[in-house]
């Protein structure tokens, strides 16, 4: 049997979940034995070169680019996993959700303490190359179907390892109390 293929992406996240993925220490060597990586910041493959078995998504969607990447992952991965708070619920970026996007942009480019007086032409970046901001930050499952959710900020290395090995080996995942209880 060929090795399962994994792809990963960070959308509106901080890369913390990916760091946690790397935090499995020397088990990364076991993982490499078990799986093959495709599109992912880990190996810097920019575009899908084949159909993948598992996709790991970090971060929610804050702009049109995020939405395209997420949809691309859904198309190319059999199993899609939201991993981490931001992918599951929007996380920290979603703090902007109660504020209208126009106000957010004005604060960031016109009125904020670090820009006030420095943006004389009063421009809010609008080049068509720049991704378009969404009205709010969406959790991934509000855009496409997500098969599994791995909670945590970030999810612990152990949780990620357990989930991936369970999926690959087809065994049931062990979820200890500490892993699903956060407070």
């Amino acid at each position, binding site marked *: 049997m060929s090795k399962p293929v994994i792809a990963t992406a960070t959308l509106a996240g901080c890369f913390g979940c990916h760091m946690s993925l790397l935090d499995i220490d020397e088990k990364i060597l076991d993982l490499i034995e078990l799986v093959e990586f495709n599109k992912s910041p880990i190996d810097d493959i920019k575009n899908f070169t084949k159909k993948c078995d598992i996709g790991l998504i970090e971060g929610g969607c804050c702009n049109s680019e995020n939405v395209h990447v997420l949809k691309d992952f859904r198309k190319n991965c059999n199993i899609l996993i939201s991993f981490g708070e931001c992918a599951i619920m929007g996380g920290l970026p979603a703090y902007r959700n109660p504020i209208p*996007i126009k106000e957010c942009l004005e604060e960031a480019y016109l009125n904020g303490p670090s820009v006030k007086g420095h943006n004389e032409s009063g421009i809010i970046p609008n080049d068509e190359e720049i991704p378009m*901001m969404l009205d709010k930050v969406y959790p991934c499952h*509000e855009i496409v179907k997500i098969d599994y959710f791995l909670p945590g900020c970030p999810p612990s290395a152990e949780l990620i390892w357990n989930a991936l090995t369970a999926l690959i080996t087809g065994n049931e995942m062990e979820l200890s109390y500490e892993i699903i209880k956060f407070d």
Partner: protein
Amino acid sequence: MENNTVHSAIRKYNQDKMRLMDILIEIQDNENYISDDAVRIISEKLELSLVDVEQTISFYHFLSKEPQGKYTIYLNNSIVSNMMGRQIVAETFENEAGCKFGEVAEDGIIGLFDTACIGMSDQEPAALINGNVFIHLTPFRVKEIVRDMRTGKDVKKMHTSYLDGGQNKSEYLNSAVRNNIMRMGPVLTDDYNPGTIIMNNLPQLTPEQVIEEIKTSNIRGRGGAGFPTGLKWEFCRIAKGDKKYILCNADEGEPGTYKDRVILTERPKLLFEGMVIAGYSIGATEGILYLRYEYKYLKHYLENALEEARGKNLLGNDIGGIKGFNFDIRIQLGAGAYICGEESALIESIEGKRGEPRDRPPYPVEKGYNDCPTVVNNVETLCSVVKIMLKGGEWYSSLGTPVSTGTKVLNISGDCKYPGIYEVEWGLTIIDILDMVGATDVQAIQVGGPSGSLIGPEEFDRKLCYSDLVTGGSFIIFNFNRDLLKNVVLNFTDFFIEESCGSCVPCRSMIPLFKQKLEKILSGNGVASDLEDLQSWGKLMKTNRCGLGHTAANPILTSLKNFRYLYEEKLERGKEYETGFNLEQAVSESCEATTRVPNF
């Protein structure tokens, strides 16, 4: 704001922190808001923290930290109001007043606000204006009312008619509300001379004998939960406590319910006599009538009835000549919170706190108001008690069915010829009821208000009784012109989102998710798995602490069970999953803000 109002309100209630609700209501009514200054003064005088005062204010719908206008208009947004033409009335209010709902007009004269059912479902659309009820509103009437406001007219003088007979036009009430009593049974009849039981029977009976009679009658609580009344009294009688209380729950907030309003208007003496009998039985010295704020217009009238009773030795010391039987009743106003109809939340509210349900056990009969043994009974239950003592428990149990004895007062509203109050024996079928009220072409009935069930014609042969269809009395009838999901279920779900006290997570967080899912289905983006989600989420609601939380998803769950085809016909066929996300729509706001053309 005049600090004098604040100080005099505090003095009036003896700086008693248990009377915080009264103090806040008094200030709100006089000043149309409660200022920071007022909060500070109250917290100092009552020795409460600022947060204690703030959280009570923020909990109740009719208390506010912002000025609400010299004339504060609360227009009912319940389903029956919508069905009877609320929209055009609301639009006229907005146009005439010059502000939107949720706002106060710039001149500060008029404030427009939504409110949940105000207990006028047989005479909608209705509004509360500075505590006075205005029924059967039309655009014409609204223009008239707003014109009157601009001239500074007294709200009480804005009524155009006092059409109804009965006590509504009595000098202490002067309200334009109608009774619409369509059918009187043995509890509501007017052939009883109030005070007879207290004067003639009570002196001959021990409290235990009274409880025995009530147990023989087999009457169960008429608020909806149906706990046997005699048993409740017995538990409280044997519970240990220095003081005991009898509380009457007149916080009928279940949309479509208004029977207690009519009973309070027409039979207050019967109710108070029932409270005295209950007080005698359990050994209470104090009774409190918890009156929902929406019925504040009845307060003065009811207080007058209490005063009259005191004059006749039906309240006070050595009542009815029984040595040492001292008992009195006071009225406690609520301030707008459906959850306070739950008995432990009601107790919290009477103690001046947020109306959050308590953990049970201990039950109120052991540890209730003031931590003392307390009985909480519904208005209708306490009235029935008097008739049971008059004619005997045997007589009462001969009415209705063997398990569900006696009568029930029904509140009928919605699509029927004769909405109003009907006192009927238990055991009628839905078909009987529909015949009785002149309802034809019926698509569905909401039985027992939003917390009850939405049922369709295939269940109309069901019987009104505790072993089949239980109800607190509310029946809202919908004909085939009504869109059940969009107009009914969504309205009820909004109601629960508004009224959840927020204490339990599933109640606070799940109802908005239920609503989102329903909206997704209504917008045509639903798939089969969405219906499975709704059903499975329903189980979570049982983990909430109180009855509201348990039933808050019922509008969706019961309509899904009984009208599944309405959901299914809106689903996208052949799709396994659909989020309904629309990229074009999601970027339109930011593109507009940055003046760029969306490119996909």
